[in-house]
């Protein structure tokens, strides 16, 4: 079966202030309805890869395409903006707003639906990530790390996006809470039938949420394949990374 490419990074090069490029001609595809997990060491360009697809960073060379149309940072007709949901590493919830307004932010300010309807949908989204309704009127500062991640996940899914991005979704969480978040991610991606792109250092999380895996090194794709192939792949560096072994062993 030929899978349809949903997101394509084409020869993407990004550098900052004349230093060595963070992404150096990166080529990568995320297929529709599948979950791609990008792994790699610190500073290898994983976050930048994600940000180019979100339109937050403009490549110096190459482009990122969603459904065959180039991502246009800052433009309202950007093909990405209308159909993405994003879970940030820190949650990135707005401190000044109660949780339900955080979750409903896009509905209120971009889709301009009524406050009553937005609240109803926000409460539904909170329920989908197993958060009680009483959390809705609390501020982000009063929630635990795990609850913040769930609320941020609710914000990412509330508008029923076709693409979900996850930036280090389990970083800073205890193993049990991380497992809860992994299961929620799998469930929500499946419910929405969305294409998911995640970046993570957490190999347990990768095994939970990935259909496909790509490893980035020096701003390029070192290896790419299905989850089944990652543990048995011929690339020694990938195997060591997945097992958490340094090259000096």
């Amino acid at each position, binding site marked *: 079966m030929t899978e349809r490419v949903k997101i394509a990074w084409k020869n993407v090069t990004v550098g900052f202030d004349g230093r060595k490029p963070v992404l150096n001609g990166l080529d990568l595809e995320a297929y529709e309805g599948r979950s791609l997990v990008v792994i790699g060491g610190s500073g290898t360009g994983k976050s930048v890869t994600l940000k180019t697809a979100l*339109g937050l960073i403009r490549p110096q060379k190459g482009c990122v395409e969603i459904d065959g149309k180039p991502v246009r940072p800052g433009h309202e007709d950007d093909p990405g903006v209308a159909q993405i949901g994003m879970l940030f590493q820190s949650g*990135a919830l*707005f*401190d000044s707003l109660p949780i339900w307004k955080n979750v409903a932010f896009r509905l209120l*300010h971009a889709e*301009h639906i009524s406050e009553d309807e937005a609240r109803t949908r926000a409460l539904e989204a909170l329920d989908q990530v197993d958060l009680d309704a009483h959390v809705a009127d609390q501020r982000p500062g009063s929630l635990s790390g795990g609850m913040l991640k769930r609320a941020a996940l609710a914000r990412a899914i509330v508008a029923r996006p076709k693409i979900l991005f996850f930036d280090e979704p389990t970083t800073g969480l205890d193993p049990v809470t991380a497992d809860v978040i992994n299961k929620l991610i799998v469930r929500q991606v499946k419910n929405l039938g969305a294409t998911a792109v995640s970046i993570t250092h957490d190999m347990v999380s990768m095994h939970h949420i990935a259909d496909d895996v790509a490893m980035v090194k020096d701003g390029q794709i070192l290896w790419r394949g299905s989850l089944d192939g990652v543990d048995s792949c011929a690339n020694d560096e990938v195997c060591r990374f997945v097992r958490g072994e340094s090259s000096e062993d």
Partner: protein
Amino acid sequence: MNPLRAIGAGLIALLRSAGAVALFAGQTLAALVRPPYFAGQLAQQIFKIGFLSLPVVGLTALFTGAALALNIYTGGSRFNAESFVPNIVAMGIVRELGPVIASLMLAGRVSSGIAAEIGAMRATEQIDALHTLATDPMRYLIAPRVLAGVLVLPVLVATADIIGIYGGFLVSVHTLDFNPTIYVRNTWDFLSDWDIISGLIKAAVFGFILTLMGCYHGFYAQGGAQGVGRAATNAVVAAAVLIFAANFLLTSLFV
């Protein structure tokens, strides 16, 4: 290092910063005129910048007016010109000290606050989150703050003018034995409409400057908590210097 090279590098950095600020100001103005408008954000900022700044602006104006009256009395008495105290206090406050002192106080309170708030949002990816939620940060965060500054500063300065003149009145009447009726009449008769309007125009310009500096330095803050602190400091310094420079230019135009 070659001193010429250092001067050249400094000049280029200065021009680059000026260009970046000008570009940011242009984007802000574009965001002000293009929908969507965030009325709730604007109302919130008017309350935070305007209403919550009233005590600090009022107290500063009161003491400035009082001290001005004492100084003018001391100087005027050397020329037997004590009777000009109400006139000069009124003119000094309305044309110069009201707008400048109030704006400097707000540069300390508002510019730093805006820079710290937006800088913290940058550090915690909240500004990136706005992008992903199909909301333009320039329209949601920046435009309401700058518009609130432009709208609120004239009102604050008008309030500062009244309180400052009252400060001069209190000292003059209770300490310097001025007749209260004559003091008020001299103040009122001496001031022209243009004195008041020019001060309020200055206030609107200073409001633009001090909110823009807070937004600019916060928006481009880098480097976590240290970067946020640096952004707040730079915002206050830049706002204060630009307010003095703009004051000179506007005074030159208005005399």
